[in-house]
């Protein structure tokens, strides 16, 4: 007998060409990309969205829980979708190409948009650190005006880095729901 699974939602967002699709590929058991969507029974409900460049992945956690990973389109003209997709999300992994001034400028605006939208936890992954124009992490943090948001250098092409970003986000979510006693006396 089949039973309904719980679904948790995580957003993977950020300006265009930051590595969102790659990250979703590593973290998902099933994945479809907005660029070349093949509708299947399991994914047909999302078919109408595929034309606007949505990436989508499913991670099967256990018999009772799946995680849906939504890679939002990075272009500002799709900001109505950012709003829709962020509803009910546990948190957001925000990727930004640290070598592109355009991406950083767009990232700053996107970040403001998400902050205004809700207080869900956000983790920022600074990608393309190997390129010559890549900003230092501190400079990038200033340019994006991240405040106390966590920023981590990463390469989504590396599976471990993709995992780390999602784990970092989950850690932030857990931290917000837990009580810390300062019992670390040396």
């Amino acid at each position: 007998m089949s039973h309904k699974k719980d679904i948790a939602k995580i957003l993977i967002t950020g300006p265009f060409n930051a590595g969102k699709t790659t990250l979703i590929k590593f973290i998902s058991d099933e994945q479809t990309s907005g660029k070349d969507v093949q509708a299947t029974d399991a994914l047909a409900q999302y078919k109408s969205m595929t034309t606007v460049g949505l990436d989508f992945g499913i991670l099967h956690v256990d018999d009772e829980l799946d995680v849906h990973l939504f890679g939002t389109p990075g272009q500002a003209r799709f900001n109505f979708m950012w709003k829709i997709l962020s509803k009910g999300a546990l948190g957001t992994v925000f990727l930004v190409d640290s070598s592109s001034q355009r991406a950083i400028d767009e990232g700053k605006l996107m970040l403001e948009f998400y902050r205004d939208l809700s207080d869900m936890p956000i983790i920022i992954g600074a990608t393309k650190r190997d390129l010559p124009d890549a900003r230092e992490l501190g400079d990038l943090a200033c340019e994006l005006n991240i405040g106390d948001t966590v920023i981590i250098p990463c390469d989504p092409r590396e599976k471990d880095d993709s995992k780390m970003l999602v784990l970092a986000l989950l850690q932030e979510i857990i931290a917000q729901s837990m009580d810390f006693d300062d019992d670390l006396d040396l």
Partner: protein
Amino acid sequence: MVENIQADLNFKQLSLLRKVLQQKSTGMFLFDLASGGKGTVKINKGNIIDDDGAVEHLSDSLSEAVLRCGWVPLKVTHNHRELDPQGTMIRVLNHIHWSDADCVRLKLLFMKLPCIQVSMVLRDMKGFKEGLTYLILYKRSINESDFTPACFLKGIDDHDMLERRLKVLVLAYCLGLIKAKPQVAINPNNKSVSSIVSRIFQRVRGI
């Protein structure tokens, strides 16, 4: 090396600094060094007051074990420039070198700590010479369940490498960037969220 450690010397100043910085206290931090020196650092609401020799005194206070240290709450009346504790600690730790005996003292202290959660809110990573080592600490803390400082220090015998790891731990400890991993959710509503997230956490770790 371990047998040469004097029992009356310790690094209790780290606990005190952590406390006053975390609680954003105002007052004066005093210390007597093992080598006979002494000093004070004034702190206003968790920021370091930049009066004569404040950074040097902070550096002295971290550079070796102390005989004793203390805290005197006081009102700050003068308008001194205040230094951000994170940037100041990074500046100080960039230039500190510990003796073998002090490295062992620090290692033994940190090895006692329980499972920790590490925060990545380190704004001045660029200025911190051990930024990459900090990143290793952070990555390991989220990748390994039951991660303790002992895991981070275990098997590190080379002095330079041990010193680098200890600097990272001292920085994270004093600034409150490491916390004991919590076991209990604050309220029942959050309990279900943390249960779901914990399951996802384990699953992602296993990918």
